[in-house]
C-alpha cells in the first residue's frame, strides 16, 4: 500500500470541529469521491472530532490518501491522550453515551465508513482510524 504524506490538524477548540469538517471535505472532494460519500466521510469526521473535543479536550486529526491494489481511498485518524474508553465494544453500541449525547457517533461513523478501528487505553488515550475506499 502506498500512501501520500500525512496532514495534521490540531483539535482543541469547538471551532476546530468545523475546521476538521472543512479539511476532510476538501480532501475527499479532491480524491474524487461523489457527493454522497463526501457527506458520509465528513459526517463521520465531525462525530470523531467532537468526541476528541468533548471527551479528551484536545487531540489531532491526521489524514492521508491511500492507494492499494488499484484502489484509492482516504484514511483519517483521530488521536488523543485523554481518559481513554473503558469498554470499546460498549462505546460502539447504539445509544451508549457517558456524555449525555445520542450515543450514535461511533456506531454511526462505523456504518458510514468502510473501516473503523479503535485503539484505546484507559488513562492513556484513544486512536480512532477511519478508512473509505472509492468505488470505481
Amino acid at each position: 500500500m502506498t500512501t501520500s504524506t500525512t496532514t495534521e490538524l490540531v483539535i482543541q477548540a469547538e471551532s476546530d470541529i468545523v475546521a476538521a469538517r472543512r479539511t476532510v471535505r476538501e480532501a475527499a472532494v479532491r480524491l474524487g469521491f461523489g457527493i454522497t460519500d463526501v457527506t458520509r466521510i465528513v459526517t463521520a469526521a465531525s462525530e470523531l472530532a467532537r468526541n476528541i473535543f468533548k471527551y479528551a479536550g484536545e487531540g489531532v486529526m491526521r489524514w492521508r490518501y491511500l492507494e492499494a491494489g488499484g484502489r484509492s481511498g482516504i484514511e483519517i485518524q483521530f488521536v488523543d491522550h485523554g481518559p481513554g474508553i473503558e469498554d470499546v465494544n460498549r462505546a460502539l453500541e447504539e445509544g451508549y453515551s457517558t456524555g449525555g449525547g445520542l450515543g450514535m457517533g461511533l456506531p454511526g461513523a462505523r456504518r458510514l465508513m468502510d473501516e473503523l478501528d479503535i485503539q484505546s487505553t484507559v488513562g492513556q488515550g484513544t486512536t480512532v482510524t477511519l478508512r473509505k475506499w472509492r468505488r470505481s
Partner: protein
Amino acid sequence: MDHMISVVKVRQVLMVTMPPDPDDTTVTALQEKVLGAMERYSAKGVVLDISAVETFDSFFARTVSETAQMVTLMGGRTVIAGMRPAVAVTATQIGLTLGNIETALTTERALDLAAAEPARRKVR
C-alpha cells in the same frame, strides 16, 4: 451574516434558516432562538430550512428534535424543509431519526404544512 441562524415570520409561521456549516454554539442557539420567537410572535409553527446544510450529525439531530418537541409543547408544528439528498442518505444510514417531525422538499410546501392547524389539539 453568513454563519448565523435567521428567523423571519412568514404568514403565521417562523421561517428559520440554518447556515451551511454551523459550529456547535450556533446549533445550540437554535433552540433558544426558536422558542423565544415562538412566544414573541405567537407563531403557529416553525419551518426549519436546512437546504444549505451540508453536514447533519448526531449533535445537530439531537438539537433539532429537542427543539421540535418543545415547539410541540407550545402548541406549534415543526416542518423541516429542503434536506439535501446526500444529507438524507447519511442521516438515515447513521440511524438518526427525527421522531415525528414532518419534512417537506420545498419551503413553500413546508409553510403550508406548518400553517395548517395541528392535527390533534388539546381539549380542556
